[in-house]
């Protein structure tokens, strides 16, 4: 893998000596050129702080960051080969769209007369051609987001950092933008580092995902791997749901409910359960069932059969089945042992 960004044992501590907060705890990651790499985690896990350190807006307390092999310690943001798309866009309110997008061009030595062409090109990329003279307060959220994107892309950075850029958009627009961003990234071949707390978003767009929790990276793998083979309880629970059964994890959609128990020595295992609740969700049905030892499991089954109102009422006995290959084993510390 041709490494674009090398993060080595980076730690960031904030606050007074007496009450320090460790936002990023000894994180090491390598991000390849042209990758769509996501930092995924709940609020406060350190992903945004890490991103800001890549941009140069924060300095690591210890450790180092290399961009394209160059050590970035002491390099201020305006001299780094990366650009950041801010969560709340940070558009300059006193400039129109064209001037916003053109803002950084003069620092690349682009002549004034060539600026218009570059701006038009960037706006075409994000499908906002024709809005050059609008001011930020005349734009919708989605439009502002695209202007922020264009403003960064016009500088043709090697690495684009995005800080939860889709957070303020409504569901439908968000999904559209996810697809657009992914296509854009593929087309331009730029390395994207994308911060989000939305696991669907991360799975949709990313080549690789680093799942963060309380300042640490719990797992960094290809998207499918992080989902299918989570290494810790946290990762399993953060991407999709996870049922913890006796030392291993099975996802709700990998479980099925049958009347009979599974045959011995087959590909499947089963356990007897009592049905507690059933929620119809159109495409799926969510079952809550209880094992003999009192532990609850969640089952998510696609409604392939015509819906039967009377099947599986509360209190009925069933068996929950799963394919042995879908069981992810953890040791006592909650880490993947196998």
């Amino acid at each position, binding site marked *: 893998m041709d490494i674009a960004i090398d993060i080595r044992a980076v730690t960031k501590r904030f606050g007074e000596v007496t009450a320090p907060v460790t936002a990023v705890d000894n994180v090491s990651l390598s991000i390849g050129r042209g990758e769509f790499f996501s930092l995924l985690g709940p609020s406060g896990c350190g992903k945004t702080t890490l991103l800001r350190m890549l941009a140069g807006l924060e300095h690591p307390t210890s450790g180092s960051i290399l961009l394209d092999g160059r050590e970035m310690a002491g390099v201020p*943001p*305006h001299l780094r080969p990366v*650009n*950041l798309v801010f969560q709340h866009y*940070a558009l300059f309110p006193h400039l129109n769209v064209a001037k916003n997008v053109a803002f950084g061009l003069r620092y690349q030595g682009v002549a004034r007369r060539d600026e218009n062409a570059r701006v038009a090109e960037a706006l075409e990329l994000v499908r906002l051609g024709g809005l050059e003279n609008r001011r930020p307060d005349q734009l919708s959220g989605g439009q502002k987001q695209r202007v922020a994107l264009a403003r960064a892309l016009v*500088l043709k950075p090697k690495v684009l950092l995005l800080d939860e850029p889709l957070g303020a958009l409504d569901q439908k627009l968000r999904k559209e933008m996810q697809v657009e961003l992914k296509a854009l990234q593929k087309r331009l071949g730029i390395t994207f580092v994308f911060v989000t707390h939305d696991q669907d978003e991360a799975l949709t767009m990313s080549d690789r995902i680093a799942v963060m929790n309380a300042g640490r990276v719990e797992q960094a793998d290809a998207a499918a791997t992080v989902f299918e083979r989570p290494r810790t309880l946290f990762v399993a629970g953060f991407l999709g749901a996870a049922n913890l059964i006796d030392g291993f994890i099975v996802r709700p959609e990998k479980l099925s409910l049958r009347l009979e128990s599974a045959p011995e020595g087959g590909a499947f295992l089963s356990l007897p359960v009592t049905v507690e609740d059933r929620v119809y969700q159109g495409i799926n049905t969510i079952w809550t069932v209880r094992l003999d030892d009192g532990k609850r499991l969640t089952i998510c089954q696609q409604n392939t059969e015509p819906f039967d109102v009377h099947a599986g009422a509360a209190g009925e006995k069933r068996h929950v089945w799963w394919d042995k290959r879908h069981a992810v084993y953890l040791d006592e510390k909650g880490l993947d042992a196998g």
Partner: protein
Amino acid sequence: MGKTRSRSQRKGDRGTMLLLPTWLVLGGLLLLPLLILLGTSFHPPDDVGNPQAISNWSQFFHSGDWAHNYVQSVRPIYLRVAWRSLWLAAITTGLCLLIGYPVSFYIALIAPQRRKNLLLALAVIPFWTSFLIRISAWRIILQDRGALNALLLHLHLIYEPLRLMDTPLAVLIGLVYGELPFMILPVYASLEKLDRTLLEASSDLGASGRGTFWRVVWPLSMPGVAAGCVLVFIPGIGQFIVSDLLGGSRTMLLGNLVQNQYTSGRDKPLGAAIALELTAAVLAMLIAYAIAAKRRGMEVAL
């Protein structure tokens, strides 16, 4: 059965009632004196300087006597005073901006959070002392045998005391000193409201500190700067205390001119005319500022 009023009408009534005290104060303490002044300015002065009663109104109007004071007020010697006042107020405003902006910048954008209030308080505390006393203190500093000359002589930087008192320079120093907080506070307010992520974005896009300042901070602090300039210039142009205490008879400003007419000059109507002209000029400037600001979409925050 009284006539019924709709909800919005009743709300309107309440609003009017609440504004009544304001209207009374504005009317009684502002409009009324201005009207009295206006009336005074049209009368000719009597022997002791009071407005003289008019015996023959038709002759008064037709002969053009009613405009006598206004015609007087544009004589060259008075125009020189007006010009000097204008200049001094302009330079004061410029200096206040030059000195005050960096101070506001430091407090708003550089000083750590816990020190901001302290620094702002320091800028404002002088107002707790009498203005007269503070300006008088400058006499002690600027006199031939005052503190400044004593220090410079002692350090052998000069060999003769500098003539500072009773000069336009002294008035300038006094004005800048007195007006500085009026520049610092509005500029600070403007800078404080600045979205810090804009500065980060500017930096990320390639602008150095200076680039970010001139392209982002400065334009966005314009409302504060404009308000500060207005708050410094307008009192500056009407000054008479500072010029009286520090400028002596050499530096007469419009304020002193009006004051004189009401005392030793013995021509109250002339004083009234000049005062009204000044008021009208200031009003015109304020209106121009408001129109220009509104047109640019800036808030008119005075």
